[in-house]
């Protein structure tokens, strides 16, 4: 597998080898950052979330079993960090309705982008996670299930429901996942 953790590196990282850990981490930072940016819709918060997740991953590296894929394990930590960040983010709450009302040209392409962002924000976190992982990071449902810590069927259900709720505010064609 492309992102299966190198057993030697994992062993070294568990022994406290920072270089080994950063070697394991490096290829994962881009998808991690894109996941966080998609979930939080804020660049600075996304950076912070990935940094926090990386530190937590370092502390928990002993929990990573040899042969386990590193990417879903780390993205799961990032997703968890995003949830924590959103809970504590009182200052960043935007009134979506107010934002939408203030837009004067609803057919404008830029408005459509804002509408979609707002529709994504309105999704429940577990649905947004699945939608972002599936449509933005282009990950397979099986890996998404590992990241979300849920069954394949549950993840597929979340994706369906997420698409349906997106459709309520944002006109899209029915999608078969």
């Amino acid at each position, binding site marked *: 597998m492309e992102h299966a953790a190198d057993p030697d590196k994992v062993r070294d990282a568990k022994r*406290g080898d*920072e270089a080994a*850990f*950063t070697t394991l*981490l*490096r290829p994962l*930072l*881009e998808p991690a*950052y*894109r996941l966080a*940016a*998609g979930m939080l*819709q*804020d*660049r*600075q918060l*996304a*950076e912070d979330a*990935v*940094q926090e997740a*990386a*530190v937590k991953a*370092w*502390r928990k590296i002993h929990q990573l079993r040899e042969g386990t894929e590193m990417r879903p394990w780390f993205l799961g930590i990032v997703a968890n960090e995003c949830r924590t960040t959103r809970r504590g*983010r*009182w*200052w*960043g*709450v*935007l*009134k979506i309705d*107010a*934002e939408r009302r*203030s837009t004067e040209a609803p057919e404008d392409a830029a408005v*459509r*982008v*804002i509408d*979609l*962002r707002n529709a*994504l924000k309105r999704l429940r976190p577990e649905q947004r996670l699945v*939608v*972002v992982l599936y*449509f*933005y990071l*282009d990950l397979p449902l099986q890996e998404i299930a590992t990241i979300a810590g849920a069954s394949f069927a549950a993840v597929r259900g979340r994706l369906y429901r997420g*698409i349906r709720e*997106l459709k309520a505010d944002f006109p*899209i*064609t*029915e*999608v*078969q*996942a």
Partner: protein
Amino acid sequence: MNPEDVLRGEIHQALDPISGATPELLPGIVQRLRPVSRRRPLVAIGQVAAVLGILTVGVVVLSMHRARPIGPAPVTTSPTTPIVAGPGADIAWITSQQSSGGAYTGDIVTGVDPTGHVVGRINARDELRSPDGSHLYALVDGGLEVYSAVDGHKEQTIHLQPVTFGQPMLSADGHYFAVVGNSPSTLQLVDLATGGSVASTNVGLPAYGVPLIVGSHAEHIYVVGTTIAKFAFDGATLRAQQRTTGHTLACDGLVVGGANSAGGLPFRVLADGHTLVAFCPSDGRVTWFDLDTMTVTHEVVVGQNNPFWVSPVFSPDGNTLYLHEGGTGALHAVDLVHQTIKSSKVATADTNPLAWLRSLLVTDAYAGGIPRTVAVSPDGMWLYTVGAFQAPGGLTLVHLPDLAVKGRWLPDLSLKSVWVSADGRTIYVLENADQLRVLRTDGSQIAKVALPANTDSFIVATVP
């Protein structure tokens, strides 16, 4: 196209501008790994205790900022007593510059309350706002007009001797008004309680300076320009006392403050009652001037990429001067008592990857005036900053004790000016497109208001 691909494309279109290119995260992460890898149980316990302590303090701070009614601005500028916010102090008054044949002719001043309703409009120029926020003052030919900040109605016109290029100023307690004109070169003093001009004198020099009124009965007035002239007021007459001859606050031919500062005065008398601190917007100099000995006692220069990019604002207690460079996000906190500087970077989140180019290309921002890209909450805990050269960036919320960025609001908007109501509950921001947004302290929007074209800035309470 497959509908799934359509949605995928739209989601990429919506989220790509937010994420942009992946930043270089690894160096920051590696730095943080080291302390983690070396920590021992006792250290960890200490860390937990520290975190609990920080959380406790954070909860207290948060509750102060969000829940507790924030009282009137605890302004303690010497030598007056603390100022209590007056009626209308929570209403924003915004200038929109008018011109004829390319020449500035005055302002339309619009008042907007915390619910987003326009409460009044005034045609004026050279406006000032009383320290308690309750009144607006505007110089007109032969007089001073006084307006209510509640609804903008004119309360009275105080007769003045005609002045040209008048530089007006209020006393820190709002009881007195003074104006210096340069042809003829006169200083006039007005008692606002009685509504009458009480004294005037010839300044005796090509006066182009701002009058600074000191003392609860205006015992001294300093005309601050290329030199500083000190006048004594005995209740009836003004008498010249002293004039500097050496190094002063001269600011490359500009007076410190004045109408171009839009009320955001770059100078203040410290709580000791005899130290004047002034910021020179053209060269980034901060000067401490002893009003008793009439000498410069200390000077520092704060770096700025371009003259007039830096917006000054004083903490409510007057002990700290915050200097914010909107275009670059540089923030300097100048401890005026201990004469030290702490610097930080609070750049707004510009989504344009080439945004840094603007700092090279834009060189004439606000030339001749002082932008108002920064405001302090009345409890002195939060700094609100805007400004990214007419590019998206929104408003950045900075926690003042540690200058840490704690949030960004409206990141997709280009904002140019910010003001906080006297009770601290409402934040007003001006968009570059002549729009005003009224926000709560959690960043949520109350209203959006269209203003007359060429909006300039907020008229800020004058606290010299």
